[in-house]
């Protein structure tokens, strides 16, 4: 469904992506792993339209995403949960969620979408009138995921959703992702929690220095010695 080919991007003179090629198929959970600065966020930025690549193509269901304005990409069925959440802090949970369904296609389904979000994250229903700034990091992350879900996406992209979140809430969010995926939404997950991401994902890519250096099935990569050494800590490499 999502086809990225030969993507090249840079910030001024600093290269961020060099010839990145990856795919996300319908109903898949694909993890994107790699160290800080590898270009994972840049990749999501290019797909979502915020970053303009220097070369390469991005096709979504056969349509060239690079030719579409960022705010219209949501309408096509792609939604992003950005790194650091990027919520509208001065506005309420309900307002943030409602804004998630801003695009016409999403707007038509917003009542059902809202119910689905509250079913996934019951905590948010009680807090719907609260100003987002006052919520904890974990609750804000739920709002961020909820806001993206309100767009009725067919592909949900998340950038480091577990960053700075308490472990039990991370569990809850990852469980929610499984449920979302079961409902038919494909997921592209950028995660630094490699173990959790690989347990969840059907497939994964490893990005280092702006290039894809590894690719495979989730379970397969969990057993890969390079992955274990680089991302799962020195103790894991021996096991």
């Amino acid at each position, binding site marked *: 469904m999502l086809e990225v080919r030969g993507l090249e991007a840079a910030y001024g003179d600093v290269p961020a992506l060099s010839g990145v090629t990856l795919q996300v198929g319908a109903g898949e959970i694909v993890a994107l792993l790699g160290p800080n600065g590898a270009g994972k966020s840049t990749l999501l930025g290019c797909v*979502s*339209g*915020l970053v303009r690549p220097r070369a390469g193509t991005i096709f979504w269901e056969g349509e060239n995403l690079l030719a579409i*304005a*960022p*705010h*219209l990409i*949501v*309408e096509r069925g792609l*939604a*992003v949960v*950005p790194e650091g959440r*990027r*919520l*509208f*802090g*001065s*506005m309420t949970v309900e*307002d943030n969620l*409602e*804004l*998630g369904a*801003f*695009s016409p296609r*999403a707007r038509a389904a917003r009542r059902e979408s809202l119910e689905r979000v509250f079913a996934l994250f019951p905590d948010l229903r009680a807090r719907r009138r609260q100003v987002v700034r006052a919520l904890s990091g974990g609750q804000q992350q739920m709002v961020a995921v909820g*806001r993206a879900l309100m*767009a009725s996406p067919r592909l949900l992209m998340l950038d480091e959703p577990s960053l700075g979140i308490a472990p039990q809430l991370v569990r809850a969010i990852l469980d929610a992702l499984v449920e979302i995926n079961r409902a038919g939404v494909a997921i592209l997950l950028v995660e630094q929690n490699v173990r959790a991401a690989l347990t969840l994902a059907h497939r994964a890519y490893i990005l280092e220095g702006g290039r894809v250096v590894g690719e495979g099935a989730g379970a397969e990569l969990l057993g890969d010695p390079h992955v274990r050494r680089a991302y799962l800590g020195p103790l894991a490499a021996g096991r």
Partner: protein
Amino acid sequence: MTLLAQQIVLGLLLGGLYGLAAAGLSLVFGVLKVLNVAHGELIMLGGYGAYWLFALLGVDPFAALLLVIPGALLLGAGLYTGLFGFVVRAHEETRIKNSLLVGFGLALALHALAVRLWTADDRSISTGYGGAVLTVGPIAIPLIRLASLLVALALIAGLHLLLARWRWGKAIRATAEDWQAALLTGIDIRRAYLLAFALGTALAGAAGTLVSVGYSISPSIGLEWTLKALIVVVLAGLGSMLGTFVAGLFVGVAEALSAAAFGGPYREVVGLVIFLVVLVLRPQGLFGRAPR
């Protein structure tokens, strides 16, 4: 004592218009991140619009609001599409420089236009009920100015509701807070910019109308009102329309008190002192959010 109270009341009434003038500037600044230095000229044009409607067609200035506000909305949309829409495409530094160039250029052009159309003389709208005064004890409250204060408050409250309840009002607030996140949720931020600029211009037009009926206008009032609006915006901080209105009242009263305490010429100085003090002690303003 009575004289002081009288001055304070008059200051309060003028402060309401400062608040209205500032609200438009605050909206544009908060959303587009552009300081429209021609905002005062838009106020001036609003005043002349009402003046023309009165002088040529006999339209009562308060009724003229119903024509000036939509007219100003269209003017704002036009100015954004033709001018400021290009400014917002640039990043940070270029945007700031371009906005000042464009703004000052626009101010000069509008000023020259006004002088050509209406001459440089002061103009004021004198209605039949112009001299009416509400007497509360020893204090005389000019009815026109009181009505203007109420209209200003109503417009600000209306704007507040628009931003709080209307789908595009929320989109405007979201764009002001984080334009990239707004794009990611599917908001066309260019349309949000257009709406914000149009609304800002409409508020300026309304303020101008109220100034022309309660006080007087001339082609040169632009810069003065831009400065007053800016002082109020800095005092209030960004993000609260009602807070901006209150800050306007504050500046109005502060001016009255300083004129009473130090004499007429020092009336304007207090505004500039407030400006500096706020920037040094509490840059986010009274109602703005502290920088994280």
